[in-house]
């Protein structure tokens, strides 16, 4: 019988999660300890910042109690009620949901897929998996891909930074040829710039009223600092401007952007205004080839994407249910769930 124990951001506070977290280097040892327990055949330990889960197979009815005892003694906790428990199809269903990103804090995020793969690989290397969990986990990866390819659960960006990156890619395609200028050296613009850099954007220029702060952020981002009064001249040579100054009035006006656009030979300019109050005069968006998005627009797009993903959950669950039913592991096994269902039907 397959079963799983676990807790996540949805069921336990961070204090408890950090207490039961298993560091990557300790995972093989934990797997070996679990498989050494009476009645436990196979085990996989998944530990991320948002969840700690143990998947195992029980050869005897007491195996789950053994794992509970192991949890108490290993993490020095008395109350294990925050841990959820699933058995048989429910355990498989839960794993498929986790792999598909349905249980993640950011619905549909893809990082969990790799984390589950790593956890499975670590358990395999530690000799913790055999026929049952091998089949279950390998099938879960197929389900994860199926959900991703057949639904919109992972489509679109859900944070301001990732929406900005997504829109930048809808303007330029590949960001490898794109140069970025930051006006203001705030935290939000730093994060936005890092997101763009992670997608290949090169050449970061930082311009700030406080030039020392510009130098500091520029060195952190491996870019170059620019005196604030020089930014309009530089606008012709960058593709993306992220503005987040603390100025109480607008700092980017059409009269500064129009001459820059003339020197860009048709190449578009993307301006991200994440300052409140806004840094960019809205009429800048009317200039041909200029695309302006402010913080509200970006938030709104992120919100729409989140809502769309919520709507996709039903379709994802349908795929997962069908895959659980088709899993050969349960074909020969009559679970209490199915027995009850059959009894109520007859």
């Amino acid at each position, binding site marked *: 019988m397959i079963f799983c124990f676990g807790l996540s951001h949805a069921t336990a506070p961070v204090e408890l999660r950090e207490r039961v977290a298993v560091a990557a280097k300790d995972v093989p040892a934990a797997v070996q300890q679990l498989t050494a327990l009476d009645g436990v055949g196979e085990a996989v330990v998944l530990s991320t910042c948002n969840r700690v889960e143990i998947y195992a197979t029980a050869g005897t009815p007491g195996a789950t109690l053994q794992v509970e005892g192991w949890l108490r003694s290993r993490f020095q906790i008395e109350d294990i009620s925050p841990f959820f428990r699933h058995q048989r199809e429910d355990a498989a269903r839960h794993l498929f949901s986790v792999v598909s990103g349905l249980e993640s804090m950011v619905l549909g995020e893809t990082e969990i897929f790799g984390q589950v793969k790593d956890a499975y690989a670590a358990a395999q290397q530690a000799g913790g998996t055999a026929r049952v969990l091998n089949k279950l986990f390998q099938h879960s990866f197929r389900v994860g891909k199926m959900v991703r390819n057949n639904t*919109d659960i992972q489509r679109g960006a859900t944070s301001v930074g990732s929406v900005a990156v997504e829109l930048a890619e*809808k303007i330029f395609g590949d960001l490898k040829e794109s140069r970025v200028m930051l006006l203001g050296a705030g935290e939000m613009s730093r994060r936005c710039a890092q997101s763009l850099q992670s997608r290949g954007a090169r050449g970061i220029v930082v311009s700030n009223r406080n030039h020392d702060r510009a130098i500091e952020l520029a060195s952190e981002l491996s870019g170059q600092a620019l005196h604030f009064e020089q930014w309009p001249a530089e606008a012709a040579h960058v593709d993306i401007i992220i503005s987040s100054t603390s100025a109480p009035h607008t700092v980017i006006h059409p009269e500064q952007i129009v001459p820059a656009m*003339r020197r*860009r*030979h*048709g*190449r578009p300019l993307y301006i991200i205004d994440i300052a409140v109050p806004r840094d960019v005069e809205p009429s800048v968006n009317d200039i041909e080839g200029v695309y302006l998005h402010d913080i509200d*627009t970006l938030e709104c797009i992120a919100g729409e994407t989140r809502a769309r993903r919520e709507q996709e959950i039903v379709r994802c669950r349908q795929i997962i249910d069908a895959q659980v039913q088709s899993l050969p592991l349960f074909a020969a096994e009559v679970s209490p769930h199915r027995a009850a269902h059959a009894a109520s039907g007859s």
Partner: protein
Amino acid sequence: MTAEKTALVVATILYLGGFVHAFLSLRRGAYRHSWTAFGLIAGGFLCQCLFLYWRGQVLGRCPITNPFELLTFTGWAMVLFYFIVGSAYRLSLLGAFTAPLAFLMQVAALMKPDPPAVSGKGSPGLWTELHASLSLMAYGAFALAFVAGVMFLLQDRLLKKHTNLSLLRTLPPVHHLAKAMKRLLLTGTLILTVGIVAAYQMEKSPEAGKLIVVWIVWAAYVLLGVYEQWRGMSSRRAAWAAVVCFVLAVASLWFVTPR
């Protein structure tokens, strides 16, 4: 129905299939590059190739002797450019927008009378064939530039107005569309230039009226290219110009082609 006509009907159905497939995907907001859409367009293209080959064999020349053949040839040239440009810029969606135009051109062609092809009539001369076929190839490039221009204007509007996210996510990047469109305009203009030069080498000089019309179309595209290079025209204006110039080019066909 003859085999060659059947090939064209199949091509029309395949283009319609490509259009319906893309339309439904776009409506669901879930367009992805699919081999089905690509296969439908490629199938339509192959059927057109078959038709042109068979008809060419019968005529003993490039099959552009009547409006039916002209439209088929131009539609074929447009799809040919799609395969070249679409793959270069990874613009799979360009195919989705090309399919309906290819379908409409094919339907228009099939609605035209198709007089029986007279075999062994022979070539009207190398320069005449070169002039006609190159000019129509150029029109194929302009047709695809028109498609890319329409897509650019749509995506530009979506990015400016921040509306219809699913369509925005589906359409290709504006910069890629602008580059593809400008290269198609340049390619078309160069091919048309060679086609016009070829017209002056023809044994029988073309009618002055027809030449003037062709010169006007050519001048419109050259002016567009020169202005774009010289003043750095915005991509939005270039897209509008590609749309307007193509309408002008299509209208010119009415004057210059045999009826």
